[in-house]
Every structure is written in structure tokens, then in C-alpha cells.
């Protein structure tokens, strides 16, 4: 969702960007997720002609999606530091 929030993307582009960030999910697995997020009204896809020809479905976040992403970021921050500290403690003990 962070990637989609930065600029509209289409499926292949999204999977490549995820891989660039080191998220080695199987490429095809993004489509069921994209479908579910559309169902939940978090993202919206529009069929548009792409610069080099074929029509592609470009995704962008909906207002609800922006809210959900903010909420996720807050939750993540809340979890990240405690977990980091726990792991650090673990590392110090061994």
C-alpha cells in the first residue's frame, strides 16, 4: 500500500518494486491481495492506456485506504520499538 500511495502502479510494476525492496513474494500472489483490497475499498483500479500501448489497470489508494495505511503505520511504530528492544535484550544475553 505504501508503494501504491506514492504513485499509481500496475501489477507487474508493483511486483518488481516489491522485489526491489527485498520482499521476495511470489509475483502472482499480489493479484489475490489486490482483489481483496479492492473488495474492502482500500484501493481502486482504473483501466488506462499505458505509455507504450496496452491498456493496463493502474491502482491508487482510496480515502479509506489512506486512513488504513496511517493506522497501520501507527500500529507498526507501536510494535516495532518494543520488539526491537526485546530482540536486543535477547542478543545481549547470549
Amino acid at each position, binding site marked *: 500500500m505504501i508503494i501504491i500511495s506514492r504513485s499509481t502502479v*500496475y*501489477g*507487474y510494476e508493483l*511486483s518488481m518494486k516489491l522485489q526491489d525492496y527485498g520482499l521476495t513474494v*511470489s*509475483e*502472482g*500472489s499480489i*493479484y*489475490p*491481495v489486490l*482483489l*481483496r483490497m*479492492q*473488495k474492502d475499498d482500500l484501493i481502486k*483500479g482504473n*483501466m488506462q492506456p499505458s505509455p507504450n500501448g*496496452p*491498456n*493496463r*489497470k493502474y491502482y491508487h489508494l482510496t480515502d479509506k485506504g489512506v486512513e488504513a495505511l496511517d493506522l497501520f503505520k501507527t500500529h507498526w511504530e507501536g510494535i516495532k520499538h518494543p520488539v526491537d528492544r526485546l530482540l536486543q535484550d535477547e542478543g545481549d544475553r547470549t
Partner: protein
Amino acid sequence: MNTKMLVEENNQKRKLLNKENLAYYENMLVYIRLSYSKSDIATEEVLAEMLDHLLEAQEDGKTANDVFGDNPKAYAQEIAGALPNRIPRSFLSYFLMGTLFFMGASTIFNSLFNIILYYGFNKGDAEVNVFLGSFTVKTVLFLPIAFLLVYVIIQYLRWSAFKGINKILEFFIFWLYGLLSVALFLLVIYLLPPFGAAVNLPHWEVLIIGILLGLSGWFVLKKTQ
């Protein structure tokens, strides 16, 4: 972009796939398209995305296995499961369309058969006796049977999508199935005694009724798309 355009584009683009990827993709396509309770446009859109993705991956030297994993059926099920449902209104119009087409086709074939028999071979009558009572019962019985028969075919195609069943065997199965279907309808016709008020209709009038039924089915189809 409407559904029809997407289907057409898919047909064209699919030719660019290599043999191995094409086989993999088409199995998924059949399976996902036969998830008939799902929205048509959403189905075609995701199929287009998957095809575009596969084409780009193919150019990068990847196979369908690399992209969608080595269990195409599980993947297709996942996609079908995540697709939004068809709106009930369009479901209803497909039902209506099916009913009209089925009734239209059976009426047309029936009257054509009688017309050829009467005018070509001098057999039978110029008119057909319709017994309103048994006619109603027949129609009420035939419709669920026809829908059941179609339902079984769809389920079979979904089941066989990833099995690579021998084409000759498949032809034989369908031939047998067609024969059984016809036998089932004939059984109902012969077992049901005529009752109710009788109406005499010339064959050509029946033919016109059949054509009208078919046309209304076609009209419903056009309106749904």
C-alpha cells in the same frame, strides 16, 4: 473498457504466449471464467492483468510456474475466491436469458421438425395439439432439468481444467452425456399423459412463438452486457 472488449483483447494477446505458458494460463482462464457467480467485468480485468504480467515475465525469461507458482489450481481458486460477486440483478437476468433461450430453442426445433415432417414427408398434422395442463407441467419440469444439465457441464469443465484429459475420451463423455440428456427429456414427454384444455396451433405459429422467445432472450443478453 467493457467485458466484450477485454475478452477480445485477451484472445489476441494470448497468441503471444509460448506453448508452455499458454497451456498453464488457459487452464486458469477456463477455471476462473467458470466461476459463474463472480462479476464478469472483474473476472476479465484480473485475467487481463495476469496475462499482461505473464507476457512481461516471459520477455524476462520467466515461466508461468515462476510467476504463479507450481499449483495453478490452488492459485486459480484463490483468485476466484477473491473476486467480487455478481450483482443479484445480473444473476437474475442470466437466469431469465437462459430460460428464454432454452424455451425458444426447443420450440423452434420442435416446430421445424413438425413442419419438415408434414410438408416434406406428408406425415403428421398441419397443427399441433397443445394440452395446456401437461404443457405447463412439462415446462416446469424441463427448466430445472435443463439448468441441472448445464450446471453439471460447468462443474465437469472446472474439475477437468487442470487434468489434461484425453480429447477423444472427452468427446465420448460429452456424446454420452448429450444422449442421456435427450433421453431424459423424452422420458418426461412419454411418461406424462396429456391433460388440460387442448389448443390447436398451426406449426408456423409455434415457430414464430419460438423465434419471439429467442429474440427476447437475445434482448435480455444485450441489456445485461
